[in-house]
């Protein structure tokens, strides 16, 4: 909220400059987001007095005024306003002044008469729309004074960020001024105003008030004024409103706005003659309609609370008044509502109808139910001079009175929390400055604190300690090292694993990329993923961020396509949380997933993207000490339930499985996916489920004795029917080679017609002897025999 420094100064009595006040608030209370001069745009406009007036000799509609604008300074000004009269105090723009509309004032000659300035209308001063005549100033306006200064437009605005828990008191000039007074170290000055009760005639003319929505409306106070005149507000009031950012409308509305700014209490003025019968504060009826002040017709919810008369809803409680019962220029009798509404209820209604207003903003911060009494007194003091009329009635329905409450504050706790010893007298002083009742409990190191109802944020000892701490000044608290037992922090294994994975990948060729956790229908469909398995946002920023990512792949593909503009080949990875919705339970599960992506240079050979990635994965496993003993690469067709596989090429992808558990998958992208992301077939991905991957990381590394007896090396080349795969041959080598075949390595695959040949280096050996050639031949022959038996294979000639 923007606060006028002048007004704050007037209420708080501070001697400090705007900057000093801002600094004080920043250190002890609220952040001041800006300090700016109020730009009124009327520099150089002065108060003048029309000392003589004559008809312009050559123009019927113009008159020539002699205007006193300072001591012995009388200017001749030609004026066309119909309402100009001798003796008036007026606003004069002298030559050189530039007015808010951009008009530059200069000495001119009008039909032969010299004119040294301009007598201004409200519109010309930027103070309203009235251009029917010049603005006539009050009699006491001092001639020669700067207009802006005299009418207090020259002001500084403090933009203060009032914290959500202080909305009940500090969103008002009185509240913030009270705070400033306290921070200045001076005793509260506002609360001590005369508490004289309002005098109401015995015949109460105010409509009866009934509250049926008791929880939502703790109090409803109404004042009935008869015979008011709706007109323009006086200049001082307009100035106050304008500086605070509120547009003057008419004296009645301006008064309610002024009082709200001053006290924080929103008010509403009904045209009393449009209220029929008693006022009821009740829930809206189903499908009940209400035409609001802003012209909008709302269809109400039965949870909304309305102010109604015997016929219909008149206003939306705590949010906005209705158009039909509002004050117009013809209004003579008014009913002023000064009520208290429950914050949550107002907030729900405001959110339901998207109607944030000044009133709802304050009510949802839970205002003090005792505030209406004070405001009623302020109103009674203000109204007669402003609108005339007589206070002929008042209603105050306040079934359950709110009283102040007590908190006992153990003094030790103040030091325990803040970590600094504050002398008792200072603690007492800080709390007393805030207007709290402070009493020392006899014979105990405890203070008994009484909190006034305007501070609902102060509910317990810690709330009070905060007040003591901030008033004392947090800068007085010196840093103090803790005294703690030496303790090694608990290990976070997944986090440590994540770190070692990322560091390894970045040390080889992979760049770490972070992408958003949201994507849109377009991405989901392009990746062939099922929409219905995605968790969806209720309020996305845009349709392309509607779903939570089920996989990192779609967004990584987008980033890859973008990076191809600058780089011909690259490896990227992302470790991200991904989300999947269960079709039956509709529950969303979250898991961490690691995605590696490799983009090869253009014109790569068939399968090189896949094998490039597989090779990277193999060394990744070795570097991370992944136990590959029980790991196998399975055909992806065996895992129809794995969602991610739909993105992959059906015959160039594989699932990585360890002891029946899916660890991850490697594959080139499905041609349709590549097309949708405008990529060429040189991209491969590896996706890992990180929990499962970590589970097969070796827990400890154990030394195996070095081979003592040399291996005997032989090569074998076997020819099979074409369907046989490397894994099949490896399996048979493993079985047939039994304990003697220590290692084997594929070094060639050769395809001819319907046949496929595989050539392996074989290493035979035993840990306790050098093998004889007989033993080795037997092992070799059993390999050939098993190849023949299982797949119809033979030694390649």
């Amino acid at each position, binding site marked *: 909220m923007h606060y006028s420094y002048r007004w704050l100064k007037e209420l708080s009595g501070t001697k400090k400059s705007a900057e000093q006040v801002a600094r004080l608030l920043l250190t002890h209370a609220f952040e001041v987001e800006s300090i700016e001069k109020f730009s009124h745009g009327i520099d150089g406009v002065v108060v003048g007095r029309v000392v003589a007036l004559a008809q312009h000799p050559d123009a019927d509609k113009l008159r020539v005024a002699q205007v006193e604008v300072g001591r012995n300074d009388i200017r001749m000004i030609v004026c066309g306003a119909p309402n100009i009269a001798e003796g008036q105090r007026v606003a004069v723009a002298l030559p050189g002044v530039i007015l808010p509309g951009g008009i530059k004032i200069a000495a001119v000659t009008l039909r032969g008469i010299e004119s040294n300035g301009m007598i201004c209308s409200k519109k010309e001063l930027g103070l309203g729309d009235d251009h029917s005549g010049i603005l006539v100033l009050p009699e006491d306006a001092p001639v020669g004074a700067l207009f802006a200064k005299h009418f207090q437009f020259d002001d500084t605005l403090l933009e203060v960020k009032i914290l959500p828990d202080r909305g009940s008191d500090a969103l008002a000039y009185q509240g913030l001024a009270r705070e400033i007074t306290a921070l200045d170290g001076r005793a509260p000055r506002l609360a001590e105003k005369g508490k004289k009760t309002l005098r109401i005639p015995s015949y109460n003319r105010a409509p009866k008030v009934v509250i049926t929505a008791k929880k939502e409306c703790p109090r409803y106070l109404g004042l009935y004024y008869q015979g008011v005149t709706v007109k323009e507000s006086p200049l001082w009031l307009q100035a106050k409103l304008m500086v605070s950012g509120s547009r003057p409308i008419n004296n009645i509305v301006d008064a309610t706005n002024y009082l709200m700014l001053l006290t924080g209490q929103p008010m509403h003025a009904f045209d009393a003659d449009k209220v029929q019968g008693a006022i009821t504060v009740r829930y809206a009826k189903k499908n009940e309609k209400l035409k609001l002040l802003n012209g909008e017709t709302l269809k109400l919810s039965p949870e909304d609370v309305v102010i109604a008369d015997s016929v219909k809803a008149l206003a939306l409680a705590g949010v906005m008044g209705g158009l039909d019962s509002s004050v117009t220029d013809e209004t003579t009798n008014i009913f002023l509502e000064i009520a208290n509404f429950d914050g949550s209820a107002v907030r729900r209604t405001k959110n339901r109808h998207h109607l944030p207003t000044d009133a709802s903003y304050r009510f949802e911060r839970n205002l003090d139910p005792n505030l209406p009494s004070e405001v009623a007194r302020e109103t009674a003091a203000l109204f007669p001079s402003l609108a005339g009329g007589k206070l002929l009635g008042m209603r105050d329905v306040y079934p359950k009175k709110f009283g102040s409450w007590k908190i006992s504050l153990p003094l030790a706790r103040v030091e325990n929390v803040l970590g600094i010893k504050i002398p008792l007298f200072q603690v007492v002083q800080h709390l007393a400055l805030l207007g709290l009742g402070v009493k020392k409990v006899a014979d105990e190191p405890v203070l008994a604190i009484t909190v006034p109802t305007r501070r609902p944020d102060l509910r317990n000892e810690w709330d009070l300690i905060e007040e003591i701490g901030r008033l004392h000044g947090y800068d007085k608290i010196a840093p103090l090292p803790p005294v703690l037992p030496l303790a090694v922090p608990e290990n976070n294994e997944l986090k440590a694993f994540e770190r070692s994975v990322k560091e390894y990948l970045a040390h080889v060729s992979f760049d*770490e990329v972070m992408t958003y956790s949201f994507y849109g229908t377009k991405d989901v469909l392009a990746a062939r993923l099922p929409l219905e398995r995605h968790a*969806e946002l209720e309020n996305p920023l845009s349709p392309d961020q509607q779903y939570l990512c089920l996989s990192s792949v779609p967004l990584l593909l987008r980033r890859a396509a973008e990076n191809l503009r600058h780089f011909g080949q690259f490896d990227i990875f992302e470790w991200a949380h991904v989300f999947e919705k269960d079709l039956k339970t509709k529950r969303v599960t979250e898991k961490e997933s690691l995605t590696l992506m490799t983009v090869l240079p253009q014109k790569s050979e068939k399968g090189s993207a896949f094998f490039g990635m597989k090779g990277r994965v193999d060394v990744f496993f070795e570097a991370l000490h992944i136990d590959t003993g029980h790991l196998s690469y399975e055909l992806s067709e065996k895992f129809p339930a794995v969602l991610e596989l739909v993105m992959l090429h059906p015959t160039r992808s594989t699932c990585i499985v360890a002891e029946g558990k899916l660890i991850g998958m490697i594959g080139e992208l499905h041609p349709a996916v590549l097309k949708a992301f405008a990529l060429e077939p040189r991209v491969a991905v590896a996706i890992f489920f990180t929990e499962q991957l970590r589970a097969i990381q070796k827990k400890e590394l154990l030394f195996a004795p070095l081979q003592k007896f040399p291996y005997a090396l032989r090569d074998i080349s076997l020819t099979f029917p074409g369907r046989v795969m490397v894994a099949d041959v490896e399996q048979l080598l493993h079985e047939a080679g039994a304990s003697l075949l220590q290692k084997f390595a594929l070094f060639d695959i050769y395809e001819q017609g319907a046949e496929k040949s595989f050539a392996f280096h074989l290493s035979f050996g035993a840990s306790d002897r050098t093998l004889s050639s007989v033993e080795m031949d037997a092992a070799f022959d059993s390999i050939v025999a098993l190849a023949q038996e299982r797949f119809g294979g033979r030694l390649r000639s």
Partner: protein
Amino acid sequence: MMKERVEQIAQEGRESLVTLQTSQELEAWEVQYLGRKSELNTLLKGLKDLPPEEKRVVGPLANATRQMLWALLEATKKEFLEKNIDWQAEAIDVTAPGIPVAVGHLHPITRLEHEVEDIFTSMGFAVASGPEVESELYNFDALNFPKDHPSRDMQDTFWLKQEKKKDARFLPRTHTSGGQVRYMETHKPPLRVIMPGRVFRNEATDASHEHTFHQFECLMVDVEGEVTVATFKYVAETFFGKFFGKKVTVRLRPSFFPFTEPSFEFDISCILCDGKGCPTCKQSGWLEIGGAGMVNQKVFEAAGYKRGVYQGFAWGFGLTRLAMMKYKITDIRLLMSGDLRFIRQF
């Protein structure tokens, strides 16, 4: 006689070695002076036939000569090896680039996260992680955000679609603070923990605003009186001092968070000008870093702790903001852009 001959051989060998030009000549020299049939070898073999007094003199002398000649030979061989290489023919352009080997890069946020974790773990803090999609309970309710209260407006929230109105509501977490209650539910004080993570806010993106960014939560709790506001200042100053490698002062300003009481905004002395005032700190001498406060007793209660027994501080700050400060990144959107021209600078 023998003695003189040995001395002569030594001298001849030494002198002739210097005159040699080719490796063939060197081989011939080796045969002549050190070969099996060389005079010196023969002489050594015949030592046993000499009278004892001559043997005593000649034996050591002949052996020393042989060793000396071997040493000379080795040195000359080395010299020959180098002398006979045509260095010009061997020459390569050493200013040409090396054979490229790919290397990757960690994301700047990750680098920073590791750095921050290392500082905190060195102070005995554990590192915890939590889910990115959080329940309304942990993100708001347990942190003392009342339902239908304006404090919920402090964080623009994305919500997940509900299947049924009555279902518990879930959201991409708006802060890492939800981890506080999660952690305290499974741990008892004294505790020290940091929780890094990705958080989400429903706000439009521009050069300085992102809907997705990274945060750290820092929580330290013990019995009442042990972990105070003064402790918080100490831990924060120690951390930032280490992080920026210079003395950093922490300034606390009053603030409000439902889950802390008292609550602070905290600033650090500007790391560029050390608080003197510069364009980075807008002449204020301070940089706004994050929010902090003493854990609200209601949060302890939500975690199952007894009210009024424990006390501690919670502290959150943006890793993203820290990265932007540290690396002087001018556009926050680069962090999530996946642009390798950006990533490869780290």
